[in-house]
C-alpha cells in the first residue's frame, strides 16, 4: 500500500527535484568545508547559512502551496506555524545554553532570571531533550492547525473569510508572544544560542550540517507532497478546490480533506521554522507578523501555485531579490515586492513555472512531439535549484 503510493509519488518531475536537493545537500557543505577559502568553488559559511534560510523558506512555500495551490485554502497565517516550529527549536537551544548565560543560571534562561522568575514554567519542561523538542516542532503547529481547521472547516468557513481568520490567528499569536508574561522572551524572543546536539551553532561544520538537514528536509517535503497530490486524495483535494459542494455530493467529507491538508501543511511549516532558527540565530515574535505570511503567498504565486516546483523557485527567487534589494536599495524593496505581486497576478497567473511550460509547450507543439514533458521541468529545476551560482552576490546580512 505504502510502497505503491511511494512509487506513484516518484514520477519523473519529483525524482528530478528530490535528486537535485539531495545533491545540493551533499555538494554545498563539501564546497564549504573541503575547498579552502579563496580557491575556486569555495562557498563561504555566511552563504551556506543564507542558502539554508532560503531552503527553509522553500519548505514553507511548499507547505502553503499544498493547501492553497492544491486545496484552494488561502491561508494568510502560515507564518504562525513556521514561527511555532521555530520557537520549539529555540526553546531547545535556550536550554542548551545552561550556565553559560549572562546570569549563569543553570536552568533558567537569562530573560527569566531578569524577570525574577524562580522556576521554569511547566511548558518549558522537557525542552532540554532534543527529541522531545523535535516532537513539539511537529506536534504544536500540527495541533493548532488541527483544532483551528476542525472548527473552521466544519463551520464551512471558506474563501476570503478563512483567509481573514488565519490572519487574525497569526496576529493574535504575535500579540501573545510579545508579552513578557508568556515566558517566551517577550519582544526580544529567544537568541544567543550556543549548542545544538553538543555542537557549537556558529561553527562552520554545524552550519554546513544544518544546511544539509534543510536541503534533505526539502527533498522529503517534496516527496511527501508528491505522494499526496498524486494519490486519489490529491485528486479529491483539487476537486474540493474547484467544486467544493460537488465533491460533497460524491460522498467525500470535504472538511476532513481540508483538515488533512491543513494539518500536514502546518507540520511542514513548523519543521521549516525549526530548521530556520538555528541558522538565523534568533526567533522573536516578529516572525508572527501578518506581513510575513503574506510574503509566503507572494513567493508561491510568483513561482507558480498548484505545482511542486513553483513554490520552491518562487521562495528562492523572491528572497534572492529581497537580499539584493535590502542591501542595495532597502527603501524600495516593499514597492518592488508589491509590483512583483501585481505583475504576477496580471500577467503570470501560473507563475514562473507556468511561463516556462507555456514557452516549452509552444515549442514542443511546433516540433510536434507530444511526449513526456521533460525539457520544461528540468529547465525549471535548474533555474530554481542553482543558488550556489551567485557567489559574487553583494554581502547580505545572514540574520536580518
Amino acid at each position, binding site marked *: 500500500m505504502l510502497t505503491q503510493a511511494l512509487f506513484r509519488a516518484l514520477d519523473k518531475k519529483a525524482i528530478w527535484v528530490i535528486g537535485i536537493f539531495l545533491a545540493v545537500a551533499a555538494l554545498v557543505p563539501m564546497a564549504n568545508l573541503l575547498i579552502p577559502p579563496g580557491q575556486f568553488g569555495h562557498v563561504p559559511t555566511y552563504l551556506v547559512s543564507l542558502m539554508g534560510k532560503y531552503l527553509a523558506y522553500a519548505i514553507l512555500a511548499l507547505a502553503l502551496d499544498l493547501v492553497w495551490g492544491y486545496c484552494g485554502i488561502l491561508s494568510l497565517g502560515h507564518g504562525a506555524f513556521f514561527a511555532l516550529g521555530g520557537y520549539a527549536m529555540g526553546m531547545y537551544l535556550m536550554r542548551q545554553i545552561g550556565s553559560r548565560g549572562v546570569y549563569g543560571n543553570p536552568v533558567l534562561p537569562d530573560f527569566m532570571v531578569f524577570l525574577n522568575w524562580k522556576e521554569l514554567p511547566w511548558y518549558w519542561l522537557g525542552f532540554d531533550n532534543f527529541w522531545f523538542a523535535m516532537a513539539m516542532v511537529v506536534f504544536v503547529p500540527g495541533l493548532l492547525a488541527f483544532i483551528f481547521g476542525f472548527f473552521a472547516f466544519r463551520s464551512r468557513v471558506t474563501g476570503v473569510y478563512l483567509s481573514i481568520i488565519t490572519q487574525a490567528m497569526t496576529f493574535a499569536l504575535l500579540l501573545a508572544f510579545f508579552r513578557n508574561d508568556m515566558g517566551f522572551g517577550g519582544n526580544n524572543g529567544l537568541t544567543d544560542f550556543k549548542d545544538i546536539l553538543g555542537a557549537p551553532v556558529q561553527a562552520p561544520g554545524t552550519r554546513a550540517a544544518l544546511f544539509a538537514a534543510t536541503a534533505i528536509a526539502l527533498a522529503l517535503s517534496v516527496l511527501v507532497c508528491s505522494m499526496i497530490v498524486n494519490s*486519489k486524495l490529491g485528486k479529491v483535494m483539487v476537486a474540493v478546490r474547484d467544486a467544493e459542494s*460537488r465533491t460533497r*455530493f460524491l*460522498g467525500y467529507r470535504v472538511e476532513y480533506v481540508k483538515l488533512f491538508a491543513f494539518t500536514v501543511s502546518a507540520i511542514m511549516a513548523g519543521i521549516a521554522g525549526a530548521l530556520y532558527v538555528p541558522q538565523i540565530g534568533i526567533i522573536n515574535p516578529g516572525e508572527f507578523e501578518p506581513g510575513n505570511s503574506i510574503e509566503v503567498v507572494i513567493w508561491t504565486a510568483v513561482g507558480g501555485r498548484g505545482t511542486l516546483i513553483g513554490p520552491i523557485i518562487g521562495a528562492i527567487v523572491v528572497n534572492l531579490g529581497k537580499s539584493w534589494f535590502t542591501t542595495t536599495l532597502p527603501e524600495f524593496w516593499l514597492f518592488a515586492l508589491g509590483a512583483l505581486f501585481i505583475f504576477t497576478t496580471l500577467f503570470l497567473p501560473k507563475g514562473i513555472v507556468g511561463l516556462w511550460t507555456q514557452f516549452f509547450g509552444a515549442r514542443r507543439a511546433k516540433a510536434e512531439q507530444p511526449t513526456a514533458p521533460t525539457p520544461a521541468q528540468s529547465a525549471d529545476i535548474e533555474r530554481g535549484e542553482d543558488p550556489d551560482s551567485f557567489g559574487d552576490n553583494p554581502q547580505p546580512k545572514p540574520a536580518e
Partner: protein
Amino acid sequence: MSTASDTMLYLDGVSVAFDGFKAINNLSIIVKPAEMLAIIGPNGAGKTTMMDIITGKTSPDAGQVLFDGRTDLTKLDEAAIANLGIGRKFQKPTVFESHTVWDNLEMALKKPRGIFAALFYTASDADVARITEILETVRLYARKDELAANLSHGQKQWLEIGMLLAQDPKLLLVDEPVAGMTDSETEETAKLLREIATTRSVVVVEHDMSFVRDLGSRVICLAEGSVLAEGTLDQVSANPVVIERYLGR
C-alpha cells in the same frame, strides 16, 4: 400516502421557506424501489429545492424525508446522504474540469471515502474494468485521458451520468439531463435511464416533453412547491390545471 415501508424515497408534508417565500409547500412524494419518476413543472416550482432537501443541502422547515423506508435524511449532511446511496446529477453539468475523464470516474467510483483510504488507494483490476465499462456506456472511452474541461456540454452531461453510475447509488436524482444534447443523444439518454431504472430508483426533472415521453414513467407536475397533478404523461398533460399553469395554450 400512508406508510413509508417499501419505499425508496418518502416525502411527507415537506415545507421550506426562504425569507417567507414558500419554495416547497406541503409536498408529498413517494418513489418505490426500481421505479422511475419524472417531475415536470414551471420554473420556480421547487424542483431543484426538492433535490436540495433530499440530498441534505437544504433542511426543511417541516415534514418527513425518509430514504429506504427508514433513514431520516433531514438529520444528515451531503456526504452522509451520498454515502447512503443517493446520487445526484446537477442541472448545470458539474464535472471536475481540471481532472481527466478517467479521474472523474475514479473519484466517483464506490469505494471507502475516508482520507487514508483515498491516500493509499490503488485501482484494482476490478475497478479498472468497472470504469472502462462505464466509459463505454457513456461513450467517452476514446476521450478518457482528456481533461473534462475539453468535453462538449452534452459530453459533460454524459460524464456526470457516468459518475452517477460509478457511485452505484440506490436512488438517482437527475436534474435536466438532456439540456444541450442533440436529439439522438437525448434518445440514448432516455434509453440509458430506463435501463438504470430496472434495478434502481430514478427521479428525473426535465422540461423536454418528448424526452419525458420516452422515459415512459409516472409523471408528477409540481407548481408553487406542491404536487399539481400525478399520473401518466398523457393524464398529466390533459389535466386542465396543468395546461393552464405550466403547458400554456
